[in-house]
């Protein structure tokens, strides 16, 4: 064994009164990857920032960091980005919104010693190209908000790697990304490990990512290492309780059996539902339209759990907002039993909205910061419940109990609660008015693995107890496996596949569904390339054709839009090549 290449010796972090991270030692060899895992608050990110010497005010680090036998600290000359690159969690905020992508990378090149502005700009574009970003020249001239989340994160990676550092510290680099963009990103990272011998320190709460992309793992809990070793060994036979708990979260669960086929009327049925957002184009009123939801015909029966999956930008959230009519559809119909939802107004519309509750993705932002949780939960009752106010106390408490929200928390404002507690309060607020349908938009996106697991368990219990109908918007196939009885796959505003969860997961009919399943960390498939095209100008014919890898795709795919057709009992897909023996009349 030669001397370790990157080494951390007795690194600890303390605040004035408490130790946040107990002394930790580890080493990473070139081309290798080490993961720090643990529940939130375990000190993973603190260690990452301590290595970079970028701790928040009031925190001090002890111990030393060594690279190639030389101690690295603030006095040892410029080393950030040159020797140690860093990448932080949220691609939406990691880049300066006011500066072009190319300029943000070029300024790092210039800080690294390049004097010539033109050459710096050239190097920046090459760095983008190297990470498989298409049209890097055009991307370099764009601003962060003009790029998708995945493109932004790859641009941030290009900046972190442009000076060819020996080590990359990546703090939850893919937590905010779709499963497909996550797969593309991690594949790009693995390539750099192979070609440049880049060492990677990966901070993650996602054991599936860790299992596939890190050789070694350190499990942390409350600022101390509780277990360490080769990833395969640690995950196969976890020793510590925390590690076992984390592994249990990621044990693949069998998909749920389809809900008893109900012959009754669907509780929500949409017909050719469409939402286009007008986009002002110029001087004369030439409008183009953003095709958010296109021609969606779906029905949900009482007691079903329908998961709507797809990458971001596929219209899932817009569809969720159309159902309670928080957005008005451009065309199409929504029915509930015999009721025409689009014709409702006044009190009838309010009753419809009370019975179709929407839980928004950002729980932190969906609760009024000036009100206590009790207030927030009670408000729905004041608006919708017919019974006397003195019964509200009991109903608020019952809702809080149902979601496992401690009563002591009810008197607190959201700011004094954790993300998990806030999300449960938002859930209690939705449940307190006794809805028939609950729509959840990425319910666990802002939660760590433990809090997410807790919320999903509660949701499953509530759904069974009340025979609630759930519509879950998600890009996380783990949630789909755990909760869904039915799956609808959306791509660019259209439903491309719909059917019972177990069958769709086992035998995906549409190439896009296949691609989503292949992108799950550790899956054998090749991750799908490219990004979702702009909904301002959807591709002709089958909207998926530019990314489709089916060998038997043909001219039909580029010319004609495939309808969503029955391919098997209870299963539908919108693919010219998936439909078995199309009747001649339709072709």
């Amino acid at each position, binding site marked *: 064994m030669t001397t370790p290449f990157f080494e951390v010796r007795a690194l600890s972090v303390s605040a004035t009164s408490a130790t946040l991270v107990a002394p930790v030692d580890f080493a990473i060899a070139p081309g290798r990857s080490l993961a720090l895992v643990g529940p939130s608050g375990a000190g993973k990110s603190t260690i990452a920032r301590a290595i*970079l010497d970028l701790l928040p005010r009031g925190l001090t680090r002890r111990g030393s960091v060594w690279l190639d036998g030389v101690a690295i600290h603030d006095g040892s000359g410029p080393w950030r980005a040159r020797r140690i690159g860093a*990448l932080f969690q949220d691609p939406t*905020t990691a880049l*300066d919104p*006011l500066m072009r992508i190319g300029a943000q990378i070029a300024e790092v090149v210039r*800080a690294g010693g390049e004097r010539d502005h033109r050459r710096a700009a050239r190097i920046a574009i090459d760095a983008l190209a190297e990470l498989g970003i298409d049209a890097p020249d055009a991307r370099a001239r764009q*601003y962060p908000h003009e790029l998708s989340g995945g493109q932004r994160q790859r641009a941030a990676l290009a*900046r972190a790697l442009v000076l060819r550092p020996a080590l990359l510290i990546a703090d939850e680099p893919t937590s905010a990304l779709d499963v497909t963009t996550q797969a593309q990103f991690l594949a790009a990272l693995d390539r750099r490990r192979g070609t440049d011998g880049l060492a990677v320190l990966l901070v993650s709460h996602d054991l599936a990512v860790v299992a596939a992309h890190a050789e070694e793992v350190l499990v942390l809990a409350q600022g101390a290492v509780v277990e360490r070793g080769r990833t395969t060994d640690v995950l196969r036979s976890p020793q510590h309780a925390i590690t076992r708990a984390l592994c249990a979260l990621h044990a693949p669960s069998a998909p749920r059996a389809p809900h008893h086929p109900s012959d009754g009327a669907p509780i929500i049925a949409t017909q050719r539902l469409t939402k286009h957002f007008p986009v002002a184009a110029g001087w004369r009123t030439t409008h183009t339209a953003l095709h958010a939801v296109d021609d969606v015909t779906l029905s949900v029966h009482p007691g079903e759990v329908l998961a709507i999956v797809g990458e971001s930008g596929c219209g899932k959230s817009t569809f969720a907002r159309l159902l309670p009519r928080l957005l008005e559809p451009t065309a199409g119909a929504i029915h509930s039993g015999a009721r025409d939802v689009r014709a409702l107004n006044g009190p009838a519309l309010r009753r419809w909205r009370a019975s179709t509750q929407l839980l928004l993705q950002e729980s932190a932002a969906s609760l009024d910061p000036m009100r206590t949780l009790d207030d927030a939960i009670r408000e729905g009752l004041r608006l919708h419940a017919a019974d006397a106010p003195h019964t509200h106390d009991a109903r608020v408490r019952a809702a809080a109990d149902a979601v496992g929200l401690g009563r002591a928390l009810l008197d607190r404002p959201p700011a004094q609660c954790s993300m998990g507690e806030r999300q449960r309060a938002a859930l209690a607020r939705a449940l307190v008015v006794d809805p028939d349908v609950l729509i959840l938009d990425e319910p666990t996106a802002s939660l760590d693995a433990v809090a997410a697991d807790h919320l999903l368990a509660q949701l499953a219990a509530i759904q069974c107890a009340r025979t609630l109908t759930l519509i879950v918007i998600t890009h996380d196939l783990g949630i789909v496996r755990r909760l869904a009885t039915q799956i609808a796959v959306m791509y660019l505003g259209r439903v491309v596949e719909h059917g019972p969860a177990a069958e769709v997961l086992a035998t995906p009919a549409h190439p896009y569904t296949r691609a989503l399943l292949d992108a799950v960390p550790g899956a054998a498939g090749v991750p799908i390339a490219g990004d979702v095209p702009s909904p301002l100008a959807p591709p002709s014919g089958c909207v998926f054709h530019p990314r489709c890898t089916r060998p038997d795709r043909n001219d039909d795919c580029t010319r004609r839009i495939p309808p969503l057709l029955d391919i098997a009992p209870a299963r539908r897909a919108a693919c010219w090549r998936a439909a078995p023996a199309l009747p001649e009349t339709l072709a």
Partner: protein
Amino acid sequence: MGRAAVVRLLHALGVIAVVVTLTFALARLLPGDPFASIADHPSVDAAWRARLRTTYGFDEPLLAQFVRWCGAVLRGDLGYSFSAQRPVRELLAHALPWTLLLSSVALTVGGVLGIALGSGQAVRRGGWADRLTGSTTLVLASIPDVVVATAVLVLFGQRLRWFPIGGATGLDGGGAGDVARHLVLPAATLALLVAVTLARFHRAAMVRGADADYLLAARASGLSRWRIFWRHALPNAIAPTLTVIGVLLPILLTGTIFVEKVFAWPGMGSVLANAVLARDYHVVTAVALLSTTAVVVASAAIDALLAWLDPRTRAR
């Protein structure tokens, strides 16, 4: 883009029309008229009094007066100032350059000082310099303008005699040097008032943005603190500050009455104060027209600047 500009222009013209109409009506609701002090004396003959008012059209219905005034304004005639005994246009043409000089110097100096103070405070937030500056700006922002102006006048004008106390006459009187000497005290007072307001807003904006991930990422990218400040922290925090400047701009044009009065600066503030006291309708309405136009132009300019700074607002 073009369409939005036209809508914006129509909107602006609407604002100007409403403000001018209100000012025209409100000025006439004040008891008395431009001749109250001379014509209403008991010794003045009633017939002559009536004839005087008929001559100048003050006996007509308010609406007729307004229509006539609007017609005149559209022809470029702002009316006549009875108290100053000269056309309103001449009066304003004389006062406006003085005000523009004073407010532009005060805004530039105060703007730079305020942004520098606020930025410095934010960079060293929590330290003694931040707290000292914070309490000083709070005290100065709380004291009425006129007190600050008087204190500056007494200290630097009367006691120390560094600068003249008032009575600026113009280039033909004492030359550029004289104007500059007279400018120092009122400009410094106004600049101070602008700076304390801006410093408070700017510090808050900088502190709010201080935890942004892109600043952390910039530090992790090895950029110098100086570059991070100039290219990332400052541009991202400047929007609220620019908005405040947009609000201050029209106030500086007419709202500097106290400072102009204290330092006997012959600008728009002095003109407006005299006109209100003398019920000089035409002057009051003309100043309202001018200042409203300034508000509208200033807010359009600031919006354009914000759009240029922030690509996200440009896209919409």
